[in-house]
């Protein structure tokens, strides 16, 4: 079947777009989540181990194995798992922050709950700008936000490629302010300074279903510091060391259960297949977008290992519709494209103490990017159809604005 002949994706008239009354191009939604599915037998065979040991949580056999495997995978000395990336971040901040300081430096163009993460530690977010080349926090932008009250810097790897982690580590060493790297989107990545997960004092990852390693819900940290490892192991389990012995404050229950560990282990076993799938998706976007004006694919830096997982496009001035309007059209066609980190954190209302900021680069960038469908549930043929759909949206842009003007009259 030739794509050009398929009217579902190549809309012949303005009112064929679902937003303007037509049928959605895709019958099932195309999402942006990883949703990697390992072999069910592999999952069941891991499950059998906790089942036979009759241990369902509380640092069980699979959690211990997962931690060993992930540490090896990242070239890190230690790994500590958690019930989610969110609580891994909270616990890591709690463990690393300078005592008696009240502020935390973080980029604004990032994960939409990162400021909330900080609020659970009582630190007041001070947002910094990003480097337009990496879309990430840089040593220079971080430095601008440092004050006498800074307790911690959160470096965040963007969802395509990496931030200058080595530069941030140097800044941290120079200022004495601890650094935590949020590496949730960079599980597989390597840089010229080594593997992500082997660099900063603490790097934090997620095992959420949408991420590279699907553990349904879950998270983990890597560290080369055994004191930090020990403290994190303690506070994820209420602060108990052994039975009846509370040795640290500020604990909670942030333990990963055995069933989620089984899923993460099975997915870790099939990780290379998932990365190959992602690369295939990425190559399809690369090829198809080359001939579509106005939409530029954010390229992975292929000098180093990468997961090819997230697909981000930039709208250039040739693209005829606004970013938000484009997403509206796509969503109605069952394409669950999302604005890339928009609004930025500092643009959102916040009901806890924070520092208002004006961040020129972030404000400019956060209206230009779209996160496009990818992951295990998406195949290259769907991507080709999606680009077809985008081509018809591009072609019909003039008629769409006329159509809407008429509709408003």
């Amino acid at each position: 079947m030739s794509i050009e002949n398929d009217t579902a994706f190549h809309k012949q008239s303005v009112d064929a777009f679902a937003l303007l009354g037509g049928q959605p191009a895709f019958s099932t939604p195309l999402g942006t989540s990883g949703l990697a599915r390992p072999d069910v037998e592999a999952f069941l065979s891991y499950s059998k181990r906790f089942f036979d040991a009759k241990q369902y949580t509380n640092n069980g056999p699979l959690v211990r194995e997962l931690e060993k495997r992930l540490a090896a995978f990242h070239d890190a000395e230690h790994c500590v798992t958690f019930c989610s990336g969110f609580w891994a971040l909270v616990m890591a901040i709690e463990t690393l922050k300078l005592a008696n300081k009240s502020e935390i430096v973080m980029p604004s163009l990032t994960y939409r709950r990162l400021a909330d993460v900080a609020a659970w530690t009582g630190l007041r977010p001070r947002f910094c700008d990003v480097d337009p080349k990496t879309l990430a926090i840089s040593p220079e932008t971080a430095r601008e936000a440092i004050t006498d009250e800074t307790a911690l810097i959160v470096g965040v790897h963007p969802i395509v490629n990496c931030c200058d982690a080595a530069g941030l580590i140097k800044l941290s060493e120079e200022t004495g302010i601890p650094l935590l790297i949020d590496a949730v989107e960079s599980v597989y990545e390597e840089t010229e300074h080594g593997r992500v997960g082997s660099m900063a004092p603490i790097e934090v990852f997620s095992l959420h279903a949408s991420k590279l390693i699907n553990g349904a819900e879950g998270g983990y940290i890597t560290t080369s510091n055994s004191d930090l490892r020990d403290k994190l192991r303690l506070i994820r389990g209420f602060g108990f060391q052994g039975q009846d012995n509370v040795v640290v404050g500020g604990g909670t229950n942030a333990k990963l259960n055995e069933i989620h560990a089984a899923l993460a282990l099975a997915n870790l076993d099939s990780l290379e297949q998932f990365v190959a799938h992602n690369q295939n998706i990425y190559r399809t976007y690369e090829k198809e977008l080359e001939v579509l004006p106005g939409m530029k694919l954010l390229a992975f830096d292929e000098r180093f290992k990468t997961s090819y997982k997230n697909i981000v496009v930039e709208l250039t001035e040739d693209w005829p519709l606004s970013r938000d309007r484009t997403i509206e059209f796509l969503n109605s066609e069952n394409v669950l494209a999302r604005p890339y980190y928009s609004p930025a954190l500092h643009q959102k209302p916040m009901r806890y103490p924070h520092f208002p900021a004006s961040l020129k680069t972030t404000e400019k960038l956060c209206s230009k990017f779209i996160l496009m469908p990818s992951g295990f549930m998406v195949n290259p043929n769907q991507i080709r159809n999606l680009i077809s759909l985008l081509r018809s949206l591009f072609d019909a842009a003039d008629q769409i604005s006329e159509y809407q003007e008429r509709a408003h009259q």
Partner: protein
Amino acid sequence: MSVKHLACLGGEPAFADPLPVGQLYFPDWERYEVAMRGIFERQYYTNHGPLARQLEARLEVFLGVKHVVCVTNATIGLMMAAEALELSGKVLTPAMTFLATPLSVARCGLEPVFCDVDPVTHHMTPATLEAALEPGVSAVLGVHLWGSAADTIEVQKWAEKNALKCYWDSAQSMGCETAKGLIGGFGELEVFSLHATKIISAGEGGCVATNDPDIAARLRNIRSSYGAGPAVSVVKTSNGRMSEFQAAIALLSLDDFEMNKANNIALREVYMSELCDIEGITLEPLHGVIASNAQSIVVRVGEDFGVSRNLLKDALSAENVLARRYFWPGVHKVEQFMRQPQWNLPQTDQLNEDVLALPIGSRVKGEDVGTIAKLIREIQRNGAQIG
């Protein structure tokens, strides 16, 4: 079995495998496998999926409340609860509780203030609350223990009289009922644990029950489950989601509730007859409930037992009977929660010194209870050597 040589005196342990105090019921492999294959077929892993929604609906019926919000564990549920109630300042709570209770309060930037408990029921009363009330308290966080219950109505009345919000840590109370209604519908909300050690288990898990639609909506937003009801303003969000895997296990566990409860009750009856004539050992009766999950066997070890509670615990542990001191250390003795002048909570101190929880649940058979009782007698008889 014959108890010849106590392990603490150089003999072999009475049990080859440890007997824990937690429930640890789990569905059999066939049912587990079917449920897991279903998740893999649907490829829906988390985020308020079909099983999580089904579990919430079934728990709403089971607990007799309008809204149940499932969460990844009860501690995070308690934190979300304090957030959803938008509390400030201090929270009054009994010191006779598991550490998670005050930790949840402190994680929300609030200060726990501890009250004592009634020595007979082990629960807070209006009198113990009144004695501990101080300026700055905005809420009461009630606690139910052992499958018993505090006097919910009296505590609530007292809270109302003092213009305080009242919510409940009902982590141990899944499936318990008082003369005034099922545990689950009292106060602003109640938080339950679905941990593996509880009668209904999700492996790790919990849920929050409430009859207030606004609180439920805030909880869902704080939990952050995309698409689960309307977006409402909350101070801060978190990740408290329960996955499909957790929900699948909890649904199977809910199916088994009556069976597991009956097993607990049968074990409890064996304990009652086996322990009743041991001097210095008192099996705590269930207080304040007309139906209980019977998930705890709590005894008090009196001076007349002849061996201290701690030595009894150690001697039982050596036999692979993993008896537990509850709560040890008392939360008011934990550095994070100590203050000057020191907490004056004599009843809690006493209970912390003489309460011992004994094994019950899936790993314990009726005849094991007989053996445990024999061991306790034997430990008593050898008191001089042990002590």
